[in-house]
Each structure stands twice: as structure tokens, then as C-alpha cells.
């Protein structure tokens, strides 16, 4: 069973994260984000790295791009049979790679552009729900297969190695996106499994995460209440699912969702105005199970949006900058200045304060 895989139970250790978004919607190549993450080489240890890119499949923007890894040909055959049974597969191909001396033990990585017909017997499940269900089913039930991502007009590329080597391996310089997020891992529990690298993704949510979630045990149980059953195997995954639950299912405003995950202290709530305090109290009463405790800084990607936020005492570094139309979020300022030597503004967001970048107009070509 997939659950017996050597996936890290929790992602202990340090990491580097970076996110770059062009808010004008202009697409740009992956070389910049590779240089930024490479600058923080010392923050990772070669046991995992990865990228998520938004806007890379404009010709198939209405289709779910399912990035899948297989350890065996049998897993590929079984998964493909499942996809053809449940979905309409518009197009399938191997994700092109380039040989790299530092990348070894690579699995098969393919992408499938799919849609799922609504199920007449289950009118309350929309296409997103059906894709999530399929995603979780493959991860849980198909041995040696793992879904990297399954969102529209986006995709995750990840594996075992240093992130800059993986970026070269996946030929990311040949893709163009309006948002790139990247991750370099420094796990203290080595597993060497490609599925265990960041980003973790569900639908079009992708998360890169530096930290350890001490509340993981309850976050996992809280999410199970809402049907996120099968694959809750790492704490980073929990963040991705919380975003999906709070924003897609509970339809919370983004700031409220972030506040649920990193709420203000009671002492601060007492000093707030009446309405704000009432809202904060309600959030803490209802969403205690979604509170992320422990040190973390994350960059979250989604369609048309990039969010950075940290835990409520900011126990992991996070710095932001703006240069022209671009928003940068990174673990270190040096990483930002590598690709944007002269930013308009650099700032350190407060603990728990979300930094949100949104597309101003729409996606534009370079």
C-alpha cells in the first residue's frame, strides 16, 4: 500500500523557500527562480527540492494538468487505466527532462491533461471535488504512483537533489509562468523519495514550507472531519489541505483563512476594536483545529495569487520585496537581490501577517 512508503511523517529540518510573482501577469522563465533558490544552497542538503509554476499551460487552461510520478511501469499502467476509466484524457506525455549528473534514481514523471464529467449520482460533488477524490485515491491506493499536482494551468516539478539541479533536470528554463515558487529541503530524516519533496499541492494550491508544524497531530485529525482522509502524511500537505478547506470549501476571505492558521494572541484581541475582536474570537473558537503552531514560513501559490505568511511568533525567516511589477518572498534577502539587485522596497512582514500578491489585470505574454 502507498501508506507504507517511506514518506516523512513530519518534515523535520530547515529549508529555503522563494516565490516570485509578476502581478502584471507577464510570463517569465524559470531561470530566475532557479538562480534565487541556488543562492540559498547552504539552506538545503540535497535531499529534496522542487518548483511550482503558474500559467505554464495556457493552451490547456481549462484542463486539469495532472503531474504524476511512477516508480514502476506497472504503476503507470494501473494509473492510466484508472484515468481512462474516470476521466476524459485530452493529452498525455512524458515530462521532458535533461540528463543531469547529480540527479539519480529518477522515477517516470508524466503529465495528463484531464477533465472529469460530473457524476449524476453525486450532484454535490463538483469537478474540483472529483479531481481531489481522484488525486487522493491514486496516492492512497495505487502502489508506486504519486500525484505531484493536479491543478489547472499549473504544475509541480520536484524530486531528490538540490533544487537548482532539479530545475535544470526538468528544463524549467523552457517554461514561462507568472508565478514561480521553489523549495530546497534540509530534512533531518532522510527518505530519498521524490514524492516527499516540496511543493505539496492539491488542485491549484501549491505550498513550499520551511519549518515544522508542532500542531500537526491535531491539524490532521481536524482535516479528517472534512474528508481529507487518505494521504495526510506530512505536515506540509496539511497546510495545502487547510487552504483548500478554508478557502474553497468554507469560502473564507483569504485574510480570515490566514488568520485562522496564524491567529492573533488573546492579549492582542483584547486591544482590538469591537468588531475586529468579535471576528478574531469567533475565528479562534471555530478554527482552533486549523491553527498552525510551531515554526514555519510558507509561500503558497494558487491561480492568480501568491501568499506568504509565517507562524504567529515568526520563528522562521521571511523577507519580501517589490521590484517593478514583481513581488518577491524568500527566506533570505540575498536570494531576492540575486535576481532583483535593486528592489523598490524590501520589508520584513510581521509574525502571522499574510503578504498577498494578486494579478492586477490578467495573464499577459512576455
Amino acid at each position, binding site marked *: 500500500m502507498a501508506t507504507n512508503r517511506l514518506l516523512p511523517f513530519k518534515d*523535520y*529540518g*530547515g529549508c529555503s523557500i522563494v516565490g516570485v510573482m509578476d502581478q502584471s501577469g507577464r510570463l517569465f522563465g524559470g531561470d530566475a527562480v532557479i538562480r534565487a533558490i541556488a543562492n540559498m544552497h547552504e539552506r538545503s542538503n540535497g535531499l529534496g527540492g522542487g518548483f511550482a509554476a503558474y500559467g505554464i499551460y495556457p493552451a490547456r487552461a481549462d484542463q486539469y494538468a495532472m503531474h504524476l510520478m511512477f516508480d514502476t511501469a506497472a504503476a503507470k499502467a494501473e494509473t492510466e487505466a484508472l484515468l481512462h476509466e474516470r476521466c476524459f484524457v485530452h493529452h498525455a506525455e512524458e515530462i521532458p527532462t535533461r540528463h543531469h549528473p547529480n540527479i539519480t534514481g529518477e522515477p517516470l514523471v508524466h503529465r495528463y491533461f484531464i477533465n472529469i464529467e460530473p457524476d449524476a449520482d453525486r450532484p454535490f460533488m463538483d469537478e474540483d471535488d472529483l479531481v481531489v477524490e481522484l488525486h487522493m485515491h491514486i496516492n492512497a491506493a495505487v502502489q508506486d504512483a504519486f500525484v505531484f499536482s493536479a491543478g489547472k494551468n499549473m504544475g509541480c516539478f520536484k524530486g531528490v537533489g538540490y533544487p537548482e539541479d532539479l530545475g535544470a533536470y526538468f528544463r524549467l528554463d523552457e517554461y514561462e509562468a507568472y508565478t514561480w515558487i521553489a523549495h530546497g529541503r534540509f530534512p*533531518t530524516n532522510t527518505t530519498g523519495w521524490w514524492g516527499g519533496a516540496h511543493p505539496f499541492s492539491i488542485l491549484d494550491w501549491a505550498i513550499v514550507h520551511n*519549518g*515544522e508544524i*508542532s*500542531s*500537526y*497531530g*491535531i491539524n490532521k*485529525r*481536524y482535516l*479528517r*472531519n*472534512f474528508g481529507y482522509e487518505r494521504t495526510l502524511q506530512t505536515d506540509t500537505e496539511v497546510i495545502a489541505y487547510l487552504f483548500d478547506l478554508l478557502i474553497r470549501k*468554507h*469560502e*473564507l*476571505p483569504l485574510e*480570515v483563512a490566514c488568520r485562522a492558521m496564524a*491567529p492573533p*494572541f*488573546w*492579549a492582542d484581541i483584547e486591544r482590538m476594536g469591537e*468588531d475586529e475582536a*468579535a*471576528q478574531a*474570537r*469567533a*475565528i*479562534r*473558537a*471555530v*478554527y*482552533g*483545529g486549523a*491553527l498552525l*503552531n*510551531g*515554526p514555519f514560513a510558507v509561500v503558497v501559490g494558487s491561480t492568480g495569487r501568491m501568499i506568504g505568511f509565517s507562524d*504567529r*511568533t515568526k*520563528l522562521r525567516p521571511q523577507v519580501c520585496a517589490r521590484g517593478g511589477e514583481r513581488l518577491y518572498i524568500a527566506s533570505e534577502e540575498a536570494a531576492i537581490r540575486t535576481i532583483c539587485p535593486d528592489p523598490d522596497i524590501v520589508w520584513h512582514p510581521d509574525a502571522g501577517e499574510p503578504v498577498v500578491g494578486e494579478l492586477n489585470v490578467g495573464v499577459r505574454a512576455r
Partner: protein
Amino acid sequence: MPEWLTQPDFLVERDPERCIQCEVCVRQCANEVHEFDAELREVFSDSAACVGCHRCASLCPTDAISIREVELEFRTNANWSPQVIRNIYRQAEQGGVLLTGMGNPEGLPIYWDRMLLNASQVTNPSIDPLREPMELFTQLGKKPARLEFAEDGALQTQIGPQLELKVPVMFSAMSYGSISYNASEALARAAHEVGTYANTGEGGLHEHIKPYADNMIVQVASGRFGVDVDYLNAAAAIEIKIGQGAKPGIGGHLPGEKVSADISATRMIPEGTDAISPAPHHDIYSIEDLRQLIYAIKEATRYTKPVGVKIAAVHHIAAIASGAVRAGADFVAIDGYRGGTGAAPTMIRNNVGIPIEFALAAVDARLREEGIRHDASLIVAGSFRCAADVVKAIALGADACYIGTAALVAMGCHLCQKCYTGKCNWGIATQDPYLTRRLNTNIATRRLTNLLQSWGHEIQEIMGGMGINAIESLRGNRDHLRGVNLSDRELQVLGIQMAGE
């Protein structure tokens, strides 16, 4: 054959070198162990009457008295223990049900001691609660599954009434009657000072305790003593008592001699009459009846107060708790088989019910499986001895703990288990004015306040070590528990991993 075969439980020894014949022990012992012989001008002790409460030894100005348990005088027998033999002698002499007080003292496993807590090392930082915020604030009551916001971002969802605790520990139900007025007042005042709650039990709400009613949970039990609409509306919350961990399935009986004028007024019963609480509520013979009572009370209080249900931990506890939540309970209090009592049949106390650890694990898991965990808060009772027990319970899934015995011990109780005799030398479990005035309410209040404060600090230290700064991240977080000395099956029911995993 002698009529009495029982030997004393304790041996009272008096050091003649030290004793100054001051008679403090004579005056202090309500069991009349010590007697001054005026002719011999000497104090003598009758060990047979001693209950081992240490009142005389504690107050002896020259430390002349020592009290020892009588050493084993029976032939060693693993099956027929001295206690079992003595019980049979007592029953053969008197022909009655064996009575006892306080919680189950039998040597069954204490599962709290088989669970160990986690702490941060390297990969995440531990937090120093003296320097950084460490939040214990807890809200008890029904919560919605989600919040809804209007287009303009305004919060639409109304959240029902909540109890607000600064420390996730409350004082368990102890009625005025089972304990003295002074003890009741101290509990109420300490709850008020600390920012938590005390529970009236079914003793009614005394006129002088009403000023602290904002920190009181009032009980509606099968005897309905002291219950009227003012009683319900005075309190912060109402608890319907179905069962008690020390005596599941059994009612209560406050003998008429304890029903003084004051108790009679508080319980709303005639002076000198026995206050008998039936085993079941005579208007609750099914879960739908419970629902009616819950909603009758909610109606009477205009939905402004949480209404909860207290049940004893018995075999199908998960299903019972789930039923109570679906019946509308805003909180469920579960009392484990080690829970205390003022009086219970020994056989019931020692043999009926299940450990709170398993009950809690099963109920929390079941409510989550059914997706109704947010509909009610879980309060657990049944022997919380220290802050670590509380932390372990919260990590298993509790919202808060009730303490009874620990609070009594803080006020001076020495666990002699004779509460039912009404002769408590510490002035706690008695109505005899000569004894009750020994408990100074100011001092008792301070001791209780100190206890909760010190537990609060300890809980903060443990959480800080785990790298957690809000109690909601500890609640139900079983990843921070590991088992030792537990079978696979026990680990499975507790829902925790083995140490080393």
C-alpha cells in the same frame, strides 16, 4: 467467639517523653481516638477508632503522635487480602452494604503514568513561557463547523454561549451537604479569582455564594435539589448529572441529620429530611427524554447559557456521549472510574466503570468520526492528580478537566476515605459546626488559587517545551503522546504510538 473480629486499621503511637498532656489531640479528633484520663492525668489513644486522617499528628505541638498502618497480621494470601477479610468481618457483624468515600484506591493500572509527553529538540525551538505568550485560554460550548461572512466581509455566524477558562481546569461537582459551607465558598471564590468554574453539585446555590455565580456551573441532578428558574439563570452554565464515576448507576443519599436549616434552605427541602437522589432521573428514561430536559433548561435560560451533561465512564461511553451531543448538550463531562465521591457502596466504586483515559480516547475519536466534535466540548474527570495528567488528557482530546479530590487535598484533605461519616476532622466533609469552622475560607481560597496557578504554570512549561503556544494546538494532538508499558490493543484504543515510534 468474640463479637468483633476486626482489628484497627491504624496504630496510634504516643511518645510519652514528648507528650505534654495538652489535650489538643483530644479536642481535634471527632472519632474520639484520644481521651484524657483526669485521674491519671494522662492522654490515652484508642487505635480502633483511628481513620488515619493525621489531624492530631499535624496539630500536636510536640510531635508526640505518630500513626502507622497496622502491619500485616494475616497469613500471606494473594487472593484473600487483609482488606477482603476485614470487609467480610464487618459485613458479618453488621449485615449492611459496605460504604466508603473518595475515589477507587485499588491498584489497577493508571494509564496517565503509561503515557509520556514530547518536547522540541533542534528542528523546532521550544518556547520560554516566561518570555513569550503561552495561551491556556479555553472556550467551552457548542461551536459551529464553519464561519460565514457576508459580501462586505462582515461576520454572519453567531456563536452560542461559551464558558471562558483562563486555566483548563475546573472544580468538579461537590455539593453543599457532602462538603461544608466553608469548603463550598472557598471553591467558588477560588474559581472566581483564577477565572475558571466551580460546580455546585446537587447541593443548590447558597445565598452567600451567589456573588460568585458567574463562575459557577449549577447541577440539575435526579433529586432536583435547589433547582428553580433563578438557580438556572444565576449560573454560568447548567450541567445535567446523569452519572458519577465513583458510582455509575447509583443515586445519592444525604442523611437527614446533615440537613441543617441552612442546607434545607439551599436544597429547598424540609429540615432534617433525608435528601435522596434517585438512581435515574424519573423524567429521563431514554435519550429523547434527555433531549427534552436539555431544551427545557435552554428555554428556561433563553439560550444564554451552555447546557451540558455529566455521565460516568461506562462500557459504551462513546455511543452514549455521541447521543448526548446529538441530544443538544453543549458540553459533555465524563467521569472515570477513579472519580471521587462523598459516599458510595465500596463494591460499586471499586468495580463499576472504565478508566477515564480509554473513555476520553474513545469519545473524542467517535465524535470526530461522526463529524460532531465541534458540537460539544469535552470535560473529563476521574482523578487528575497533577498538571501532567491534565496535559495528557488535553492531548488525548479533552477541552478541560474537572478536579475534585485534588482540590480537597489542597484544602487539607488527607484521603482517609471517611467522608460519609460526617466526622471530617479537617472541616471539609462535615456539617458539624465544631469541625467546619476549622476550615478558614480565606486560607482555603488562597490554597486553591495557588494550586490552579501552579498547575497553570506547569502546563505552560510543558507546552513551551513542545513548541506549542496555544492550547488549541495541544488539544487532541495525540502525536505528542507516546506509550510505555502498553499492549498493542491499549495503544490502539488510546490512539497513540509506542515510545520510539
